[in-house]
């Protein structure tokens, strides 16, 4: 007997019959009946009426029957809550069954029954099962916590299940660990600020150990969880990378992609000159290439991800151009993605190969693909200058085919090539003009008209050409109409004598007969310009155009960063942040790549007795962040050295150049840029306020939020005159240290509110820590060494500053300008050791040791080392 008979159409008395069979004495018959019920359920029939009868079958020692009954229960318990209660006793009993399969089955099913009354009964059995001796039961129970949390979050918290779940991360069975991690990750997502998944080096280590042992699916949970961790220094991130790398050769592509995500993220922390960084780059390429040998569906997903990776780190795949060449039997969506990546990877080294391929593609059958291929040839020309000539001749060849859409597409891209390389390829215009008649798409027509107008002086019959377009002016699309208007005005300015009539005609067409406001307005503007001041008109219409950029379709950097954090997920396929398509609060937190830092924090712990000291442990981390990357942030010792500035002369404290803090578009036209400076012991905030709006701004005022060092404005902001449109004013705001204190993250973060007559605007900026170094920061020389030795090892931090070509004396001089005082100097084995002290505005002393390697001129001061030790000075 086969199961298919259950699906045969049912007659009226079916439910009745089933009822009878369910209550039969024979086990076999019962089993068959339950199967029939489930079959009806699957095809969408309502068999909820049989609930009590099915529940009656539950008490059986036949596992197969029990599983079937549980399956039914899961589906209908919600609609029959009162009946479901009848089942509770059996559930509770089954949770104590000697057979672990039954215990797990009961726990799993109970969690799936979303009836509030049942959840109360669930707590005790679940608590037992979480500590069960059998790992199969424990791993099922771990998931059950997530289920219960979904039904009643408060209950889970009150019952302390979350803590038990956290304990399971240290379980001996990798499957249990994986499920615990998955459950915790999901629960943590709905509580963004909770500290549920408290990832620290110890737990990370446990996860990495479990990673090697658990199933492929468990590996995915663990890798995804690892990706949310922020390693505290580059050594840790290197060691995590080393342990994750073997996953790249896993047969399951989901594991590979999750590993790639972790590596891409942690690579940010690694210094680029590290050997390991290069090794890692090399290791990333083969797995990505292998993904392209999968089925078309997976290939598509892989290509969307590779597109992101190539934008972030083109060096990974720069030698793998060939794998992106399309195969004739690729589906069109794979072909288009491959083309996109080919262009991104195109460089001088491989351009010949790429062009040869693109030319082949341009003769294929699929219209969309051919169009994109032609466009790609144009993009190559713009991207790789050396290839421009070859691209243009390839495009001309293609125009010769006279295939309508190829010609049109070619003309559109040739227009862009003209804009990128003006006055270079105009010789081809004649060929283009031959194809005027075949152009029927607005974009191509507009491009052609632009070319004719732009080079009117070189085309003898430009007026005739444009006139021919003018005949059907009203039938053209707006794009073509606008272009035609501009082109004819250009023509008129270049050849005023012959084209007076033509320009009259187009202006009247545009202004009188058109109902398109853009067209009319543009027509009027031209008319006024031409009638009042032809010279000005020439300046405006024939103005020099800015060059077009090389790369198009680039994803905006912040979005790209976020998407890199979501490699392998739906977000990376859509190229949209998860918040754009995932409902509610889940996943709204924007993920960011870690900041690149050149530091090696060796030991880092708080200082006893002072909460500010605890913060200082992190402070050095914030400072050199600016050394490696953007100089605008913070401003640490690297800035103090001021590489670009006058060498050697201490000219007072270093002042970073102004950076934009508040964008005009975010503040109704008010743009604020600024920096911080310490001048003669007074801290100042230098601001430039620019009015980019159309109206006058007045009534400026400023306020700070509470911050780590109590910075506050010492007086009101002095903006005396109203700020008229397009005017910029520079203001210096003296700051005091008497404001309320609150520890910020990062430590030197400052949140500012600026008010004017329009609105209040908020922005945050980071001040360099050196701002807080006071002038009397010279420590007593006699007690320096003793104090140095007394500092416990665990409050030390160590980091490197790179690429500084100064000798120790100059460096010491320079630092003194910023109130970092050299107390002693000693030379050991060619290394200069500088012992330095700093005092902060709030009375905290920082002692430092800087090692400068002399000898090699290139590396004179490349690796100075500072060991910061902070201690509270009691005077």
């Amino acid at each position, binding site marked *: 007997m086969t199961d298919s008979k259950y699906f045969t159409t049912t007659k009226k008395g079916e439910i009745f019959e089933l009822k009878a069979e369910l209550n039969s004495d024979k086990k076999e018959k019962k089993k068959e009946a339950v199967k029939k019920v489930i079959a009806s359920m699957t095809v969408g029939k309502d068999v909820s009426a049989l609930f009590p009868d099915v529940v009656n079958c539950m008490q059986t020692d036949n596992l197969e029957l029990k599983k079937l009954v549980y*399956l039914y229960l899961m589906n209908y318990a919600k609609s029959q809550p009162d009946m479901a209660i009848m089942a509770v006793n059996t559930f509770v009993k089954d949770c104590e069954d000697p057979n672990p399969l039954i215990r797990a089955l009961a726990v799993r099913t109970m969690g799936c029954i979303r009836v509030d009354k049942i959840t109360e009964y669930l707590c005790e059995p679940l608590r037992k099962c979480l500590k069960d001796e059998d790992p199969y039961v424990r791993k099922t129970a771990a998931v059950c916590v997530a289920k219960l949390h979904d039904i009643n979050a408060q209950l889970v918290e009150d019952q302390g299940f979350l803590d038990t779940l956290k304990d399971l991360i240290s379980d001996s069975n990798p499957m249990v660990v994986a499920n615990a991690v998955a459950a915790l990750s999901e629960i943590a997502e709905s509580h963004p600020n909770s500290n549920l998944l408290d990832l620290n080096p110890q737990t990370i280590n446990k996860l990495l150990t479990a990673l090697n042992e658990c199933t492929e699916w468990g590996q*995915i949970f663990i890798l995804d969880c690892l990706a949310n961790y922020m390693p505290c220094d580059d050594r840790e991130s290197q060691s995590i990378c080393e342990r994750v790398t073997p996953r790249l050769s896993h047969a399951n592509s989901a594991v590979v992609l999750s590993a790639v995500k972790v590596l891409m993220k942690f690579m940010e922390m690694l210094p680029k000159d590290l050997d390991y960084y290069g090794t890692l780059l090399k290791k990333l390429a083969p797995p990505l290439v292998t993904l392209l040998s999968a089925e078309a569906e997976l290939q598509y997903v892989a290509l969307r991800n590779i597109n992101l990776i190539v934008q972030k780190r083109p060096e990974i795949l720069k030698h793998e151009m060939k794998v992106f060449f399309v195969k004739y039997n690729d589906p*069109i969506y794979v072909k288009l993605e491959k083309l996109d990546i080919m262009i991104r990877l195109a460089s001088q080294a491989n351009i010949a190969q790429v062009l040869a391929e693109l030319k082949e593609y341009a003769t294929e059958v699929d219209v969309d693909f051919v169009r994109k291929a032609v466009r790609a040839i144009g993009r190559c020309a713009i991207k790789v200058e050396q290839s421009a000539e070859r691209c243009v001749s390839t495009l001309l060849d293609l125009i010769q085919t006279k295939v309508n859409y190829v010609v049109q597409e070619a003309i559109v891209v040739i227009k862009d090539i003209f804009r990128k390389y003006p006055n270079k390829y105009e010789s081809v215009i004649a060929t283009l003009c031959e194809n005027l008649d075949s152009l029927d798409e607005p974009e191509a027509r507009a491009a052609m008209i632009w070319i004719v107008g732009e080079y009117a002086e070189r085309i003898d019959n430009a007026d005739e050409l444009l006139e021919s377009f003018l005949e059907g002016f009203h039938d053209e699309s707006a794009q073509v109409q606008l272009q035609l208007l501009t082109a004819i005005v250009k023509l008129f300015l270049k050849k005023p004598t012959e084209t007076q009539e033509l320009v009259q005609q187009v202006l009247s067409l545009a202004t009188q007969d058109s109902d398109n406001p853009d067209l009319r307005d543009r027509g009027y503007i031209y008319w006024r310009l031409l009638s009042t001041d032809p010279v000005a008109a020439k300046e405006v219409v024939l103005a020099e155009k800015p060059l077009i950029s090389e790369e198009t379709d680039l994803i905006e950097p912040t979005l790209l960063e976020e998407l890199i954090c979501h490699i392998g997920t739906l977000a990376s396929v859509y190229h949209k942040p998860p918040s754009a398509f995932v409902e509610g609060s889940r996943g709204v937190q924007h993920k960011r790549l870690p900041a690149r830092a050149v530091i090696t924090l060796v030991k880092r712990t708080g200082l006893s007795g002072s909460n500010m000291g605890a913060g200082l442990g992190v402070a050095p981390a914030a400072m050199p962040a600016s050394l490696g990357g953007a100089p605008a942030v913070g401003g640490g010792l690297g800035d103090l050295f001021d590489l670009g500035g006058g060498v050697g002369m201490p000219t007072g404290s270093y002042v970073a150049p102004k950076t934009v803090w508040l964008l005009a578009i975010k503040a109704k036209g008010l743009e604020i840029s600024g920096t911080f400076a310490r001048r003669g012991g007074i801290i100042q905030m230098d601001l430039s306020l620019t009015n980019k709006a159309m109206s006058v701004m007045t009534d400026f005022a400023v306020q700070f939020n509470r911050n780590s060092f109590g910075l506050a404005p010492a007086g009101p902001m002095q903006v005396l005159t109203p700020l008229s449109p397009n005017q910029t004013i520079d203001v210096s705001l003296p700051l005091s240290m008497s404001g309320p204190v609150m520890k910020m993250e990062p430590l030197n973060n400052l949140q500012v509110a600026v008010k004017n007559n329009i609105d209040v605007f908020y922005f945050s900026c980071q001040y360099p820590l050196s701002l807080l170094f006071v002038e009397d920061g010279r420590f007593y020389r006699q007690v320096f060494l003793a104090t140095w030795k007394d500092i416990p090892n665990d409050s030390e931090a160590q980091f490197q500053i790179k690429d500084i070509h100064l000798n120790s004396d100059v460096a010491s001089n320079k630092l003194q300008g910023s109130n970092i005082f050299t107390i002693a100097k000693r030379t050991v084995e060619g290394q200069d050791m500088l012992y330095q002290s700093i005092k902060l505005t709030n009375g905290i002393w920082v002692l430092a040791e800087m090692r400068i390697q002399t000898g090699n001129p290139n590396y004179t001061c490349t690796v100075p080392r500072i060991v910061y030790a902070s201690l509270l000075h009691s005077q």
Partner: protein
Amino acid sequence: MISQIFILSSKGDHLIYKDYHIIMKHFRGEASKDSINVFYEMVTALSGDQTPVVMVHLCSHKDLHFIHVRQGGLYWVASTKTNPSPFTIIEFLNRLAALTKDYCGSLSEKSVRMNFALIYELLDEMVDFGYIQTTSTDILKNFIQTEAVSSKPFSLFDLSNVGLFGAETQQSKVAPSVAASRPIMSSRGEQSGKNEIFVDVIERLSVVIGSKGVLMKSDIQGEIRIKCFLPTSSEMRIGLNEELSIGKSQQKGYSSAVRVDECRFHQAVKLDEFDTFRILKVCPSQGEQTVMQYQLCDELPCAPPFQLFPSVQKDYYIVTSQLLFFTFSCSTALNVSITVPVPKGSVSMSQELSSPDQTAELQPKNKALLWEIPRFPGGAQLSALFKVDVPGLSSASLLEVGPVSMSFELAKQTCSGLQIRFLRLAPTQTGLSQRWVRYVTHSDSYTIRI
């Protein structure tokens, strides 16, 4: 995380439907089933240009994302509301289909219908609350209670297998393809299932040959697949070519070493003897699994299997003559088909073919002519002459005679040269077990430019 899993027949009937409750919260009862119908409408409305991977269904501001694969004529669909990895889900759906095939013997609407209780049971063990738990038959067999019901369709293949006409046919030397399609868990009582193990080496070949006969690009994607029917799992040793080298080696010299660029292994494969002896140690779980995947880009150890010498001339019509040469002498190519693009507006064609079993036809809709050779003996050479009548012929029309593409199948042959040296089962294995090793090379994309 996965919210729902369903299996639909090609007509859109619901065969299996599993809701991991997240949807139910919002839709409840009947409405949740509607999502299946929504999916079916969407998938049937798909044109070939759209990506089948991910589809979004907007439903009262709550997006539902469908991810599906098609296998065995069925839709295997998962839906989700969060931001999971599509790789995970596609891999899982493929694995689910493979497991269904392993457990039910074959993959069809009928076998899924007959075994729905078994599949529900499998799904319950494989996915809990949308989290994938396991897909390994080794683990699953501890939990699964339901027995498979297998269908035994009458098949001529079975007869030919017996050697109906007394003669040993070509096929009977190779394991018949149906032999491998039966459930892995044949009823416990009767020991009807033979102790068999199949090891297949399958390669897919992609080649681009430039207009002057230059090999421009070639790559091989290969895999070693095991289908195991042994009742108990014990260690098996698979010996590959001893001279196999992995990675791009510096010195190539004259050695005839077999080389692959990169390989990936199933996580159950033990590699301790791989580095020195090229032996894979694996305890195959029941059912089908890929133990090793490898690839080789460029630098094929042999010449590409087919050489085509096309020539195209323009007269009053386009004349194209093709000369095809099969370079492998000891193998036979099956189902060779050659597609030659022709200019738009081609109306008719006359042909001269070198042997009677070949066929050729013009397909004006696809702007191509198709030349088919059912069986191509090794070392042979075939030629064909086509005259295509194109009204309004211009010099540009010649450009439209684009790259020629070929598809074929080479039995008993690998292009990389990878071979299974031996297949040893642990001596503890009781009873006689039959071991089959099969090689096959498929064309993936074989293009010859004119």
